[in-house]
């Protein structure tokens, strides 16, 4: 698997750290225990299209939101999480 970092270009998968589902982008209030449980543990875990968070750890260290297919290793879109946040 190779991932095309928006800043560094196409790089080996080894340079990237996988964090998990994009749920991590929407952190709930910590006092809301049910929401925190869902945020930390419960996953949709789809077979097919998914969006998840990766970091170009051994490169520019940018956090990336990657749209990919979990059944085929196909990668459709790689975006900087920072841009994503600004647009909201």
């Amino acid at each position, binding site marked *: 698997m190779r991932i095309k970092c928006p800043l560094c270009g196409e790089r080996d998968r080894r340079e990237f750290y*996988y964090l998990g589902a994009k749920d991590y982008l929407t952190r709930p209030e910590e006092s809301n225990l049910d929401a925190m449980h869902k945020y930390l543990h419960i996953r949709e875990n789809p077979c097919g299209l998914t969006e998840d968070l990766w970091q170009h750890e051994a490169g520019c260290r940018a956090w990336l939101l990657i749209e990919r297919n979990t059944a085929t290793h196909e990668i459709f879109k790689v975006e900087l999480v920072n841009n994503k946040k600004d647009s909201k």
Partner: protein
Amino acid sequence: MRYNALKILKEGLTGNKNWKPVWREPEPKSEYDVIIIGGGGHGLATAYYLAKNHGITNVAVLEKGYIGSGNVGRNTTIVRANYMIPGNSEFYSHSLKLWETMESELNYNAMHSQRGVINLFHSDGQRDAAARRGNMMISQGDDAILLDRDGVRKELPYLDFDNHRFPVYGGLFHKRGGNARHDAVAWGYARAADQLGVDLIQKCAVTGIDIVNGKVTGVQTSLGPIRGKKVAIVVAGRSSEVAAMAGLEVPIESHILQAFVSEGLKPAINHVVTFGMGHFYISQSDKGGLVFGGDLDFHASYSQRGNLPMMEHVMEAGMSLMPAIGKAKVLRSWGGIMDMTPDGSFIIDKTEVENLYMDCGWCYGGFKAIPASGWCMAHLMAEDKPHEVAKKHTFDRFRTGVGLMDEESKGSQHNLH
């Protein structure tokens, strides 16, 4: 039909013409007391122990492929009881005891071989950790011997003991550990369950789970609807997908784990050996192939084929530990779908839907657990309360944070196990 030596001799002399299929291939009935979704090791063992221990025989096992086509036929076949955390410790201890009597009970040769598992260590710190683990294993009633360097040399003369980066300091020897013929475990439980009246329905994919007023009433399948008083989801890597049919969201992320088999070689590796400084473990099958594997690829995946970086890591680790295997050719490799939980331990529990149960989250350690998983799942479904050795393995531990079983002390987070 029970197997015995006389029967084998007779069939051998008469052209092996009178062997019968070992289980029936029934049409599904319209209703069962228990429907088990998933005809893998855990599902089949659950069906068997429901019938054997609890007298519940009106049971169907629904398998979308064929019996043994899932992870039970695609793993590295290791059986051991060297866990350390309360909860896992007593469960795997129970499982190993069941392994030791399973073949005679099922009247089926699963080629269970207690050849011993040796976990190597390569530093003083690792030796302390191994000694502690060994003491925990002995205190839970299992066996462990702390081998020094010479002790390891006696058992495993082929290792590179003086590797400059990772010299071998010793190993923790778990003699009752070993491995088994994985397919035969599925076949043995399938045959025994069938003989007790369980219907094994192959090529029957579940497409929906029927729920009325919060209570499960049956399933929709590719062979039509089947009513069931109780339903179990025992589908390993596909747990999230099947749970979603019941509107449930589960704390599982499916990851890929690779394994490799070499060409057949003469007996060389007589134990299960694990490297302590890279993710690599190896044993040799009775056919002669070296069976070895490594760690997860570490990203959510259903692809059933791995990536090259982990493959390279496994080969490098293997070459560091036992350079002799560099002469062998790798024949095949594959990736299995692992149902990973945040804390790396499994779940055997009721769900929010009444009479719907789940046995899942086996991470990369499901094979050794097959007998005890079936035993405890059957107990939960028959008695409607958890079995003593699996009572800690609930869904709720993630919500509350109480009773997490984080065997690797990494934290309760999906991408860490």
